């Protein structure tokens, strides 16, 4: 203690240093249990991508060029329709996967699946 104080004085350029606190005077209080929770947050999974945005902007540009005459932008409409259909199928698949009806294996699990597993098989923490 004495040594620390004098060393600190050296570091701080001959100014009086604050004495370090006594650890016993400030006991640590564990407000929450000191272990990981049995769940993960779903923030990572919620990727905010809007489907067929590219096709939509192309269609808008084409429509503006042709004064909203659809017969002249059939190609863009077809592209948007196709992209929309694919997105709808994808949406359905995602929903089925998240609902737990589809069992998926591997390392990549959604937060919902992971939470379900954690609930069923809680983490075993070795206690002292």
């Amino acid at each position, binding site marked *: 203690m004495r040594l620390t104080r004098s060393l600190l004085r050296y570091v701080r350029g001959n100014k009086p240093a604050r004495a370090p606190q006594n650890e016993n005077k400030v006991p640590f209080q564990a407000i929450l249990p000191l272990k990981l929770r049995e769940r993960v947050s779903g923030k990572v999974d919620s990727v905010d991508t*809007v489907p067929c945005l590219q096709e*939509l*902007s192309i269609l*808008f540009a084409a*429509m503006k060029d042709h004064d*909203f005459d659809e017969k002249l932008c059939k190609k863009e409409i077809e592209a*948007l*329709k196709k992209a929309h259909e694919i*997105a*709808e199928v994808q949406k359905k698949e995602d929903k089925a996967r998240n609902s737990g009806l589809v069992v998926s294996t591997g390392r990549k699990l959604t937060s919902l699946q992971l939470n379900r597993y954690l609930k069923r098989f809680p983490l075993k923490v070795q206690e002292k």
Partner: protein
Amino acid sequence: MLLLKNILQLTKFSPTILIKNYSQYAPHYIDPIFKKQEQDNLIQSGEVSKIAFLPIKAARNNDTSSVFHDHRVSRMVNYIMKGGRKDLARKLMSETFERIKRIQIERYHKSKTDEERSKLILNPVQILHMAIENCRPVLMVTPIRRGGVKYQVPVPISEKSSYYRACKWLVEASREHDRKTHLPEKMAFELLDASNNTGRVVKRKQDLHRLCEANRAYAHYRWN
């Protein structure tokens, strides 16, 4: 008395009652395929084996394999119908067709060259189909709340929904008539206009597309 006792005994051993009729079909039931042509197509393509053992809904009483049956027409009749009066709705629809036919035949006889005549479509059902096709929107706007403000976000719509919208707009436009004209009269004009890609309903569709274009900056607000 003995008989009653027997019945009671019987019911005691049959606790579950087989329910035959639900108020609604379960989702795994498929729609009936009631047209001969469609059935033949299924058989030829071999897809019939996929649905061979699936439960099928009963055909509705207006589903028929007659050559006069048309899906779009029967939908349109349903959109015209008010208060379940289907006979009236059917009558209005056939009267509309009659008026279209009369107008087109008049035009046919008035036209001078063969070229003009060949361009005219005399079949009113075909005109209805063309009108609906011309009125179908590609996009629509849906209100989405972000940060306390409602944005009109443009979204692509499904084929089914676009057909519904086109039919609804046509019927709505036909209902807006003055006291002396009847619905079939107005509807015939609206359908003929729409089949030529002109008229109020086509304009309404274009206005919707313009609104979508104006709100294109909010397109990324849509959540999937």
